[in-house]
């Protein structure tokens, strides 16, 4: 695609070594997009583990119907905190904040994002928001227990510390907005010469589409959460049925944001695996434009389907009809992507290294998740499935099997580039087995439980659901082994891994033309781009 000299001369210093400050300050005061990306990564993985452990505790509680290890109030706090951390602190910023920050500027041939200081500020919003949420667990009258959806009027009446928790989420939203603004401006203003829209790697397209959703949808939840706080403190009445408020309007406002939010979660992960698949198939991506435009399509149509979370709330029938119709339409661009990824394997030259393994797993698990989404998108089936474990199964498939696996694939793909260290590929591949098997037992079990009528957010269950819960719990423990192995491998690599080459996988996008890890300025000279990305085999290119 372009000819870049990247001789690793002796004077070369990576971004990890350069900078005036030392120690922790070199990180928390740095405006370098790569360092900020790693800051996000570190915080996110830690928070992820907290939430994962809570998830395992919930599985332990569901092992028995007669012995309750945790009282109901604690279990309610568990799923609330588990959901809030997973959603607002892991999958929502997720791939976008970590890999978007690190690679978006590099991939478009820029030295940094448009507003580096704003970028650092949004990390501070993130960390303060996270701390506030955590503080809400230990202050006031007990941890929030209303679920991550904070439905009124329960969230107004419960005695627990909802206002502080909600305020933390508000701050996290602010962080998301600032990142979005930054990325949109960066893509518009910072592209290297010759980097036209159709020369941009698809990860950039995906992050760009995500950024628009972040900017347009997040403010709605911002104001909604502020109103919940105002309701709790002053009693303004807009959501309080006792004062004539309509609780269903809260749900509208909540989902106007939170449905598009699920696409904020999945789009960057989709973008990341769109990088992984051609790299390991050693051939160009199939249907570049279709994939790029379907990202925009998902972002656009995704804003019109929020009502599918409210089919049983007594919504008007015209709304039920429209929202179900749009729900099915928004699945089309996802289908297009899946087909294009599959077609990209055709006549490739495929190496199934760990990143590829996880990327293919992404396609499989996300497809299951998406297809279960279709099933519950059908109106009358949704009536039965709403608020059961089926839904819990669906969203773990798309969020963990989709976003989570996409995140893992991206981490394996870019780890050598980010840290300049190589992990043990065999251990990574071995960790896949327990993860894959455990995953399907855990969440597949939940799907069956849900169809049989097991409601969600129950600290215990009726005896007829015991077998299902047992299988799910065992699956969870099996997956635990895999995940521990997965992360332990990376932690070991961080300290003891052998040095990574600048292009270990034979990738062709710009980030592979810089040394590993990249220098502070990314490029010695801003590259000039002459052609589209993903040309692996120029001789057969059409």
């Amino acid at each position, binding site marked *: 695609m372009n000819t870049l000299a990247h001789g690793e001369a002796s004077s070369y210093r990576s971004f990890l070594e350069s900078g005036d400050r030392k120690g922790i300050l070199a990180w928390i005061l740095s405006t370098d997009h790569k360092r900020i990306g790693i800051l996000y990564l570190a915080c996110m993985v830690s928070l992820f583990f907290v939430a994962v452990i809570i998830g395992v505790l919930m599985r332990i509680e569901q092992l028995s119907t007669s012995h309750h290890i945790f009282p109901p109030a604690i279990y309610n706090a568990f799923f609330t905190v588990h959901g809030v951390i997973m959603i607002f602190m892991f999958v929502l910023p997720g791939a976008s904040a970590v890999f978007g920050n690190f690679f978006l500027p590099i991939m478009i041939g820029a030295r940094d994002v448009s507003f580096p200081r704003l970028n650092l500020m949004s990390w501070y919003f993130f960390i303060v928001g996270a701390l506030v949420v955590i503080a809400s667990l230990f202050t006031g009258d007990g941890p929030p227990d209303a679920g991550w959806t904070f439905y009124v009027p329960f969230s107004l009446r419960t005695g627990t510390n909802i206002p502080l928790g909600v305020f933390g989420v508000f701050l996290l939203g602010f962080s998301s907005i600032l990142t979005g603004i930054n990325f949109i401006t960066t893509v518009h203003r910072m592209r290297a010469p010759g980097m036209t829209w159709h020369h941009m790697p698809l990860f950039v397209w995906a992050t760009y589409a995500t950024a628009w959703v972040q900017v*347009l949808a997040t403010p709605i939840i911002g104001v909604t959460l502020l109103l919940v706080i105002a309701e709790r403190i002053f009693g303004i009445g807009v959501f309080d049925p006792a004062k004539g408020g309509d609780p*269903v309007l809260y749900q509208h406002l909540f989902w106007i944001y939170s449905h598009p939010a699920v696409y904020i979660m999945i789009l960057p992960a989709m973008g990341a695996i769109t990088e992984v698949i051609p790299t390991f198939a050693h051939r160009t991506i199939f249907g570049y434009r279709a994939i790029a435009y379907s990202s925009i399509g998902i972002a656009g149509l995704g804003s019109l389907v929020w009502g599918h979370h409210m089919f049983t709330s007594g919504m008007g029938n015209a*709304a039920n009809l429209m929202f179900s119709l749009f729900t099915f339409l928004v699945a089309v661009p996802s289908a297009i992507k899946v087909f294009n990824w599959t077609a990209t394997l055709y006549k490739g030259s495929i190496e199934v290294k760990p990143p590829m393994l996880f990327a293919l797993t992404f396609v499989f698990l996300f497809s299951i998740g998406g297809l279960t989404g279709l099933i519950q998108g059908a109106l009358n089936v949704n009536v039965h499935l709403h608020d059961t474990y089926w839904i819990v199964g669906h969203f773990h498939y798309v969020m963990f099997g989709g976003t989570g696996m996409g995140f893992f694939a991206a981490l394996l793909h870019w780890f050598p580039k980010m840290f300049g260290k190589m992990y043990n590929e065999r251990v990574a591949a071995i960790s896949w087995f327990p993860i894959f098997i455990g995953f399907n037992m855990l969440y597949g079990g939940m799907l069956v439980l849900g169809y049989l009528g097991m409601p969600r957010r129950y600290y215990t269950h009726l005896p007829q659901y015991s077998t299902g819960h047992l299988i799910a719990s065992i699956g969870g423990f099996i997956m635990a082994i895999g995940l521990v192995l997965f992360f332990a491998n990376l932690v070991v690599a961080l300290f003891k891994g052998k040095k990574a080459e600048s292009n270990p996988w034979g990738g062709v996008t710009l980030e592979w033309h810089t040394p590993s890890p990249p220098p502070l300025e990314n490029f010695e000279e801003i590259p000039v781009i002459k052609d589209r990305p993903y040309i692996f085999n120029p001789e057969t290119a059409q």
Partner: protein
Amino acid sequence: MEHAEEQGHVVPYRTLVKVWLLLLILTAVLVFVSTAFHEALSVAALLTLTPLKAGLVFFYFMHLKYERPFLKAMVFMVLGVLILFIGLTFLDISYR
């Protein structure tokens, strides 16, 4: 990058003052209509005059008139999104 448009357009003082006067007049009309006539008319005035006033501020005070077409399109896109949000919510409320 296009250095030519970097500095932005200089809007003459006279234009600004004219726009300001127009805004004050529109406000007066709005207040007058909503106090003097009956409901329907005042709602109609609300729905026409208020966006008009906002448009004046956007186009002249905020220099939107002199911006690239892309930015203009984005502003309308954002307003469209908001209207869609409100419209779809009404779809629920009006057919309950």
